[in-house]
Every structure is written in C-alpha cells, then in structure tokens.
C-alpha cells in the first residue's frame, strides 16, 4: 500500500514512465524541475534515446516542446503543477492555437499526501485552471500500472491534436 492507501504497481513506477516513453518513440523531453522530478530528469540525461532540454520557465519549455514537435520529434514535458499555472498564455496562443500534441507529465504538488504544505495553494488551483484553459488532463490512478496510463495520455494528445496533462503523485514520478 502506498501513502494514499491505494495498491501500488509491483514495478518501480518512475522507471515504468521512462521505459514507456522510450517504447513509444519519444525523442525529446523539455523540463523545469522540482524535487519530485529531479532524479527522473537525471536518468533521462543518462540514456540516449530521449534528449533532455532544461528550460528556465514552463512557458518557455512549452514553446521549446512545440518547436521540437513541429520538427517531427515526439516530445514530452516534465513540469511541476506551478508550471501549469504559469504557462497559460503560451498554452492558449501557441500549443492549443496551433494544435500541438504534447504529453505533459506534471508533478502534482500540494495534495494531502504531499508533506510540503506550502504547495497547497497550487494544488487547489491546478485543476480549475486546467479546466479554465481547456487543457485535457487526468489524475494518474495509483492502483493501476502507470505505463498504460502514460501511453493512453500520449495517444490522447495525438488523437486530439492537443496537449494532455497527466497529474502524477510522488510515487508515480519521484525516483
């Protein structure tokens, strides 16, 4: 059982995320880290099939991801939910307006299972802001294998020609 009381996958979920991205042919990852994302980004840098770009701000990261996808490379973003709050203008004027299919993996900080409580305001705002922006999203289900959820999210982004945000818990993404 994990801290939220749900049955965890038998596998190491962050490893499964990375393996799924590799299997699906992702060639680029653009990230602005937080503490949950730090190690998975290091692991991406250590492998050779996905190129990691570390951006300075999430809206900038979104534009880099759009450019990489424009160039034909399947691209994933790694950001904290604060980044979903700060990338709004780029989301509507670039990613959605030009219909870029992007998988956005979001560390969902500030939920009751997050021990760092200064994140609570971000958690309270995240889903209403995503709905306001019209960004399709889903909270990752801790009781199911994460790889299939990442693949479904990536497929949704392509089929809908739009960004899709998968909201991840600490067990999902902290290595």
């Amino acid at each position, binding site marked *: 059982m994990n801290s939220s009381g749900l049955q965890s996958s038998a596998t190491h979920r962050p490893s499964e995320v990375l393996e799924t991205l590799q299997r699906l042919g992702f060639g680029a990852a653009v990230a602005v880290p937080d503490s949950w994302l730090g190690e998975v980004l290091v692991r991406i840098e250590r492998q050779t099939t996905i190129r990691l770009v*570390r*951006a300075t701000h999430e809206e*900038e990261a979104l534009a880099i991801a759009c*450019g*990489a996808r424009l*160039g*034909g490379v*399947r691209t994933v973003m790694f950001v904290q939910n604060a980044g979903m709050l700060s990338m709004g203008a*780029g989301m509507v004027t670039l990613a959605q307006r030009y219909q870029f299919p992007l998988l956005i993996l979001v560390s969902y900080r500030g939920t009751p299972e997050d021990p760092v409580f200064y994140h609570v305001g971000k958690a309270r705002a995240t889903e209403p802001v995503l709905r306001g922006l019209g960004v399709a999203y889903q909270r990752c289900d801790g009781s199911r294998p994460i790889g299939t959820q990442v693949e479904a999210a990536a497929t949704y982004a392509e089929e809908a020609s739009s960004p899709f945000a998968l909201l991840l818990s600490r067990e999902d993404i902290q290595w």
Partner: protein
Amino acid sequence: MVKAAPPTRADYYRVLEQILPPGTLVVTALGNASYLWAAMHHTPENFYIEDAMGLALPLALGLAIAQPTRRVVVVEGDGAILMHMGALATLGAVAPSNLTVLLIQNGVHAASGGQPLTNASLDLAQLARSAGVGHAAKVETAENFAKALRSAFAADALQVIVLATEPDPNVVKPPVTLDPVLTKHRFMAAIGAPRYVPTIFGGGRFE
C-alpha cells in the same frame, strides 16, 4: 554631420531574402516580423507566430534540436526577449549550431502599437554573450548585416545578430492566410516530418 537613418525591417529582410540558402527553416515572431516576411518571401518552410509573444525564440530552439541537419533562422523582437529573457540562457546552454537568431531592436513593442520598452537601450548582443552564446553582434547597416549573415551561414555555430532599426508601426497586410493550423501542417509537410495517422481503436501510428 547628419547620421544616416538605420535600415528598416524591410531593408534587413531584403538582405535576408538574398542570402538565405534554399530550404532554410524560418520562424518569425508576431506582427510585422511575420506579416512582412510573408509578403516578401512566403514559402512552406516559414513558420509564422501569430501571437505568443516571446515564444518564437524558444520554439525555434526546439525546432533546431529536432532538425539538426537543417539551418533554422528565427526573427525575434527586443520586447519579446525582455519578456522571456530566460530563453537566452537556455539558448546559450543548448547552443544548437544550426540556429541563427535575428533580434530586431527597435526599442518599442511594435506589434501592439509602439509602446516604449521597459529598457530600450540594453546591449542585447552582450546579453546574449553573457548567456553563453559564443557569437553575438549588433549591426546598424544593411551591408554589415549581409556580412554577418554570410559569416553566420558559413559557420557551424549558433549566432545571434542584433538588427538596429526604427519602429515600423504601420501594419503590413500579409498576402497569404496565416491560419495557424494550416501553417503548421504546411511546414511539417515541407520538411517531411513524421505524421500521426489516427485509427479508430487502440491508437494510431507515425508515418
């Protein structure tokens, strides 16, 4: 001694049009950066930013990473750089050798009516060098731009060229539709980017 007026955006674009190697991918920022370039040199390899101020440069950076064997040129404005100055740091860190950045420095937010910038006199070339860009220079004549551009295209290195000019507040009417989705699909088809083919069940595939 009367100082000569700096080149206009159109003067610089005429130089760019003459020197640009065929097949170069060109990303242009919002407003006249896109409208005028579309009027002068519309090709499928142009990607016009409709709005999204400050995001032409990072988008071009991603494109240059994805297409490392093609030359990429981006036309960005000084107001846009101020809005997303962090992108310069990322640019310097990644330093794609196939990317040339043209920074229009006119001292105003031209696309929104010519409001003055918060700081119009920044040394943008120095700023780019400080951010890790190895080759950055400011030009104030069309001749020097031609020299700098030829040098940039001959070199296998990231280059930033700051183009000093005056504001051009009159909005150019582009001769073609800048429909964003059409622009994207036309661009991706031109470069042969893999296309996602949807299926009814179970997800599609890339061709």
